[in-house]
């Protein structure tokens, strides 16, 4: 396990460094002068010089990469072109709201997706199973922005149950939660469908195992067999995708944050792209990608911790 841990953390570190190199080099992928591309119509000789200096574009490419990676490791992601504030300050203000959104969506997906999958697996090929199948695929294929727009139309503009715009403040938890409900549901719907399908598949496999048949033969109640014995093992593959889930939810948050005018990394990225504020885009994207790598690492490690078969295989 320790050997795997070291190898896996080393791999995550390597991916993190590659991410930074990729982001530092990306600016050179633009045809022509990157500074002119970034500044667009605002380009003036003075501004071009400032931006070139700020981004280190007056140095050689390897020196630029080394500077970006070195500064990123020290927590320095450059300055916002517009306000001249450090990018890390902007990220610090936005990140908690995106994490709150992604985590609450993931919680909703687990809360509804897993029971839906169990329900389908316990009555395979029955009406309920088929219905759950259609609902799950429909949820998976519905883009989060469509779900968000429909929820906004229905529950904010027609019924006026929840606020249509804004984020609220952490100091007023009730108001914050009210602002969070619709965006979190919009983001969670696809993952509810995905978890339901995943749990159904692994539950069907487990419910045919000998130890489950033995449990039935002992006369245990179905609910005990399903929830205490089968689900415990069937849930393991779901844990493996939680990391990917959290990362994708943070990516999907872009749309929901724009639709509900929420403060967050997603809306900050879109805003910065519109103003061609490249250091902010670079910093936000790096933050999301690093969180994605971290979430994957944690999910992978917990998956190995939860599944004793992997530990036994490794020790033999």
């Amino acid at each position, binding site marked *: 396990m320790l050997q795997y841990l070291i190898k896996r953390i080393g791999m995550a570190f390597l*991916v993190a460094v590659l991410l930074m190199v990729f982001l530092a080099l990306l600016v050179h992928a633009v045809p022509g002068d990157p500074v002119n591309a970034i500044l667009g119509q605002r380009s003036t000789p003075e501004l071009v010089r400032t931006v070139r200096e700020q981004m280190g574009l007056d140095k050689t490419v390897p020196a630029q990469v080394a500077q970006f990676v070195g500064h990123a490791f020290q927590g320095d992601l450059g300055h916002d072109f517009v306000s001249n504030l450090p990018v890390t300050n902007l990220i610090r203000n936005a990140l908690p709201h995106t994490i709150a959104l992604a985590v609450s969506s993931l919680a909703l997906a687990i809360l509804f997706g897993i029971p839906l999958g169990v329900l389908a697996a316990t009555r395979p090929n029955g009406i309920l199973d088929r219905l759950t199948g259609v609902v799950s695929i429909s949820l998976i294929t519905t883009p989060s922005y469509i779900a968000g727009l429909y929820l906004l139309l229905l529950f904010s503009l027609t019924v006026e149950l929840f606020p249509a715009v804004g984020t609220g403040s952490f100091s007023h938890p009730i108001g914050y939660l009210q602002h969070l409900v619709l965006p979190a549901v919009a983001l969670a719907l696809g993952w509810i469908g995905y978890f339901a399908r995943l749990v159904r598949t692994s539950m069907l496999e487990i419910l045919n195992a000998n130890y489950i048949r033995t449990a039935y033969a002992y006369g245990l109640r179905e609910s005990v067999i399903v929830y205490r014995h089968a689900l415990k093992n069937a849930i393991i593959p779901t844990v493996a995708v939680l990391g990917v889930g959290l*990362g994708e939810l943070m*990516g999907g948050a872009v*749309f929901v944050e724009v639709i509900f005018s929420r403060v967050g990394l997603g809306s900050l990225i879109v805003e910065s792209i*519109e103003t061609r504020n*490249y250091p902010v885009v*670079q910093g936000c*994207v790096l933050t999301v*990608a690093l969180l994605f790598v971290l979430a994957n690492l944690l999910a992978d490690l917990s998956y190995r911790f939860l599944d004793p078969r992997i530990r036994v295989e490794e020790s033999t």
Partner: protein
Amino acid sequence: MTVSVPPLPRRARLPGRGSLPVRVARNPAGLFGIFVVTGLLVLVAFAPQIAPYDPAHQDIVNRLQGPSANHLLGTDQLGRDLLSRLIFGVRIELQVAVPATLGALALGLLLGLAAGYLGGRADNALIVVMDAIQAFPAVILALTILALLGPSLRNVAIVLAVAFAPAYARVARALVLAVKQNPYIEAERSLGASSPRIVLAHIVPNILPPLLTLVAMNLPSAIGAEAGLSFLGLGVQPPTPSWGVILADGFEHVRDAPWAVIWTGLTLMATTLGFTFLGEALRDQLDPRLAGALH
């Protein structure tokens, strides 16, 4: 003396028999997929004949109207007919989604072949690079590249091809590793066949059919991503009637005239669902091992 010959038994009709479209259509979800995709292809081919109005024709007097006999789905903020814009929008969606998906396939195939066939350090290096690219959620990667390239129909297709390529590369690599083990590859090599010949004549034809199934399953993601990026204003630009642009226009006036959002949402949902059902039915018929390969 006459000998009575018993009639030959009819060929048994096994459940899996019949041509591919017939087998796909036997499944209700597959039938729905065929129906939707055929409908979309008809719209692409005959958009000018089917659409009641020119999608760019403005009629300011009748702006933001609800559904009526003149405008079946209503009009947008410039009085343009929503039905006509949605019909012409199919062309834009496929103009982005098809090249993006085929581009991802070509790029992924190239990387997967290199990693799987060469093995060793090349394989390790490519895996690390793919891990790094996949560490960006697809939307974020697309946004990052668009931030530099600028929004346009061509750039969205490029960005989506890059974002989707690692998934194809992974599947292609796994398929190459499996095909490479076959004795006929070994036999070819011992007969002196060159690596390009082995790859092009034996490996590619074997791994292409399952990858094409993935293309059918990936198209809805590309359509959804294009519409999403255009909705954010970072993809196809107005006045081109991309579904994302129609959605963005509708969102501006969602309080007074929700029709554009409602109809575009339903069209997008039916399209992605149709392609997904068709892709799943094709996969079940052609290669059930690929279940979940792109998810």
